[in-house]
């Protein structure tokens, strides 16, 4: 087996435990996107066009709430801002690659592909084939996400429309938020955003959501600054 192939499969193997967790998540996304009012084609293709789990859930929720397009786009962008950090963190390890490789690996750069790759790159020396590891991790996740979305859409068509399946979206968000509410700034960010969202609910175009999110981000950041004036280590 060539060195490239070996690295690719190392990436797939490192990704495997994450794939098991991602599969049901992709199925839930597919079923909910359909239930939220997206067509089957749009539900499926969002998984490859946007290819970022939590922002896809949020977009489905906003389609369900009939939010205007620009609010959905801004919200997708805000939810995915963290990918800039992954990009910054992997950049030194990918600096010698061609633009094509950089673009391909960027497209595949999700939370789940980033995690095993950065661990490997920080631990081991970079070789001329190291990027095949990220390709293996990223591609196996991409493939799993597409297939699980398709399963979810298939499942979604079998669920009677009168079931309150739309409630599964806020429940998914509860499952994502509640476990991270461990520090005072986090709790304050969540509470302030939630309260502003309630107060600004009647603003047109779902602008209350963006206002609320920005409030929560600012409140959390300021409180963290007060706690440790030195900032991040």
């Amino acid at each position, binding site marked *: 087996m060539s060195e490239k192939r070996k690295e690719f499969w190392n990436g797939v193997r490192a990704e495997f435990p994450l794939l098991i967790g991602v599969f049901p998540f992709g199925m839930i996304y597919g079923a909910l996107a359909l239930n939220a009012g997206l067509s089957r084609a749009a539900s499926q293709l969002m998984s490859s066009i946007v290819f970022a789990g939590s922002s896809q859930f949020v977009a489905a929720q906003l389609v369900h709430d009939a939010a205007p397009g620009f609010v959905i786009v801004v919200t*997708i962008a805000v939810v995915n801002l963290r990918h*800039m950090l992954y990009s910054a963190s992997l950049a030194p390890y990918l600096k010698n690659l061609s633009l094509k490789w950089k673009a391909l690996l960027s497209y595949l750069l999700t939370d789940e592909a980033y995690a095993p790759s950065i661990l490997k790159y920080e631990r081991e020396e970079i070789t001329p084939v190291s990027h095949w590891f990220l390709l293996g991790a990223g591609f196996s996740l991409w493939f799993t996400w597409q297939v699980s979305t398709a399963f979810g859409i298939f499942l979604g068509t079998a669920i009677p429309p009168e079931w309150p399946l739309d409630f599964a979206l*806020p429940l998914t968000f509860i499952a994502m938020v509640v476990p991270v509410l461990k520090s005072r700034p986090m709790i304050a960010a969540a509470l302030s955003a939630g309260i502003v969202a309630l107060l600004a609910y009647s603003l047109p175009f779902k602008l209350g959501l963006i206002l609320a999110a920005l409030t929560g981000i600012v409140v959390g950041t300021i409180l963290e600054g007060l706690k440790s004036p030195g900032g991040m280590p």
Partner: protein
Amino acid sequence: MNIWLVMLAGGLLTFGMRFSLIFLFGRFEVPSTMRKALHYVPPAVLSAIILPELLYPSGSLNLTFENTRMLAGIIAMLVAWYSKNTLLTILAGMAALLILQLLF
């Protein structure tokens, strides 16, 4: 609203952010304030969606026991806190909603 345009714009922005610093390596770094701020994006955005979903079930504030979505949401929060398990949280919340709807 054209969903395809929305997805394309959202996808391009997402790709742009993933590509940004890999492309700009050595020429730009993420400011530390932004690094900090990014930690608060998920709780802020998601809470801003969750609270109105639970408390404004039909467009106006409802804090009574007839608001089954609020009660089921509270149950889901407890399950999420203790189990830290996404699937279990969704299942518990859906089961709670279905049962409460039968009761009220």
